[in-house]
């Protein structure tokens, strides 16, 4: 502790679990927006990641409310958010935004996208698997051309609705923080927008890593065109994200309101590692420069004009490029987690008297400890593994075919 803090501020109210929540929803929104690139914006190169993105979004969305639930003083009363929401409260919207996104957007889109395959799998499997797929089709087994066409157009429309919904899901999380006028570190109109773009960055980076890892484990060849395109979009999202963060920072500095001195102390003494080192240098600048140097998409896109040759500014063999992408994506994940940390924890490390700083010590065990956090961070991957087993998202199996739903029948 340093300086004066109000007596009631000794205990930090929102712990590591609340850092996890915006991190997880960010990944959900980002992964979904990536999926929409292929579906709505016709970026065909990223097609191999389409279904993987959807399943990733679903796996992380299922886990997203768990850290919040674990954090509540009375989790058994959490349903009151649905039953008697306070219409004035930003947080009261949570249940509805979440339910809308889960039920209307993700589940529906996945169902329409997989319906044809589920029917085929139900027909070609036997035993419990047959029943499972049959139940998943919800009895809708019509595979006529008309029905498939309907699936496709329904999926497209849901994605179109899904894009603003994804924006809503994560922009809303940003609003929860950005609308707290008592806290000068949070209170910013840019907060929802910054959250959104950081969500895209984290979602694309995650799917990029997942795509490469799953492809390698399946002993398939990584589609470099897809990877280059992902890296290109990752770069664009990162540029916008960083610009917004920089704008926010410069704006605060230029306005130099009452809180500027305590925020300066906050950054210099409490957030130096997580903000300057992890978020800005490791999580943003290093990936930005490395992507700019090696991504061939950027040269073609006209961002960096270089003499025509293969590769980016630096001519790189695909294996090296792939490695650089992976390293950049992992660094970005660390950077985005740091962003969430700096917002949630950083916003509580200074007193609202603006006269002092406090400290946060992460506990190891306990419901809000490091072990729980790691478990909740690992859980989406377990769920994703199950989802991938039930609904294989791959389109590069030997029995590959170009279907109207942009997928194919996987190997059994």
């Amino acid at each position, binding site marked *: 502790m340093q300086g004066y803090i109000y*007596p009631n501020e000794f205990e930090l*109210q929102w712990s590591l679990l609340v850092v996890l929540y915006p991190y997880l929803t960010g990944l959900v929104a980002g992964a979904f927006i990536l999926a929409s690139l292929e579906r709505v914006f016709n970026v065909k190169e990223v097609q191999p990641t389409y279904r993987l993105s959807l399943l990733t979004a679903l796996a992380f969305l299922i886990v997203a409310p768990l850290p919040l639930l674990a954090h*509540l003083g*009375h989790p058994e009363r959490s349903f009151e958010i649905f039953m008697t929401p306070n219409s004035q*409260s930003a947080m009261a919207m*949570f249940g509805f935004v979440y339910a809308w996104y889960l039920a209307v957007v993700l589940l529906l889109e996945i169902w329409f996208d997989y319906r044809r395959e589920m029917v085929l799998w139900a027909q070609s499997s036997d035993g419990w698997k047959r029943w499972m797929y049959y139940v998943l089709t919800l009895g809708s087994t019509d595979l006529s051309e008309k029905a498939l066409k309907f699936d496709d157009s329904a999926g497209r429309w849901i994605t179109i609705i899904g894009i603003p919904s994804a924006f809503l899901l994560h922009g809303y999380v940003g609003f929860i923080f950005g609308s707290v006028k*008592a806290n000068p570190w949070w209170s910013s109109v840019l907060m929802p927008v910054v959250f959104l773009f950081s969500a895209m960055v984290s979602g694309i980076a995650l799917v990029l890593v997942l795509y490469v890892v799953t492809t390698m484990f399946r002993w398939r060849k990584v589609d470099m065109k897809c990877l280059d395109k992902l890296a290109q979009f990752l770069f664009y999202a990162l540029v916008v994200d960083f610009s917004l963060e920089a704008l926010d920072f410069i704006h605060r500095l230029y306005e130099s309101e009452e809180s500027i001195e305590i925020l300066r102390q906050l950054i210099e003494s409490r957030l130096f590692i997580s903000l300057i080192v992890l978020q800005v240098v490791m999580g943003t600048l290093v990936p930005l420069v490395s992507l700019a140097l090696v991504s061939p998409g950027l040269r073609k896109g006209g961002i960096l004009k270089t003499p025509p040759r293969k590769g980016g500014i630096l001519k790189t063999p695909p294996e090296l490029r792939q490695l650089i992408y992976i390293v950049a994506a992992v660094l970005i994940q660390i950077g985005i987690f740091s962003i969430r940390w700096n917002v949630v924890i950083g916003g509580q490390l200074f*007193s609202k*008297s603006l006269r002092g700083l406090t400290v946060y010590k992460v506990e190891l065990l306990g419901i809000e400890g490091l072990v729980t956090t790691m478990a909740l961070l690992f859980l989406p991957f377990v769920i994703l593994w199950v989802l991938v087993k039930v609904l294989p998202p791959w389109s590069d199996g030997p029995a590959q075919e170009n279907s109207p739903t942009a997928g194919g029948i996987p190997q059994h």
Partner: protein
Amino acid sequence: MTAETPDGGVDRREFLKDLLGACGAATPVLWFGAVCVPELAAQGEGGEYDPEDHLYGMGIDVAKCIGCARCVVACKTENDVPEEEHFFNTWIERYVIREDDEVEVVSPNGGIDGFPPIQDEGTVRRTFFVPKLCNHCEAAPCVQVCPVGATFRTEDGVVLVDEDYCIGCRYCIQACPYGARYMHPEKHVAGKCTFCYHRLVKGKVPACVEVCPTQARVFGEVEKRATPLARFMRFNDVQVLKAHLNTRPRVFYGNLDGEVR
């Protein structure tokens, strides 16, 4: 009637007699002042408490506070506030403003443990105590953000928490600009000053007001004219804390220094 002496002065014996008589006559007034003024005209005509008849607020005269923290102790006892050091419905801050504009603020155990001696007294420009508590804001951010409506503002202007309804999300604690809320360590719900609502409905003033030896705290109706609070607000330049946040507090400070946040 006082008898005059030949030189036009007042006879001593008569004077003393008159004085005693005057004291006797004044006794009921003094008694009324000492006993009845801290009480509130809370009961309606039918003897029932009607919140619609009231709108409460508190006045705090910073110049009168001596930092004894009897209010803090009384509050903890009256309201079952956790004994530990970091849970307070009300607390006392001591400000020391030095000649070089440096501001030192302390509140050891909310003021209960007393305040340490001021070092280097020669460099002190101003020093004073400031009692703090929930401001029972008219536009309370805590009420706005509560996802289930467990925190609410009563018709008589008191911000309360429904302990059987609060889900313990702590959003209200984050939203309060004054640090006036905490998470109750046993009940796992938000805790805060209630203006001793259980006392108000019985026509009593909050415990902190009742025990204040210097009457630094004044409690009463905000909108009625003949109340101690109305008088306090007529005769003092009053300010509220963090007015720029537009929370419209109902705790009004007299003689407040600009350094107080």
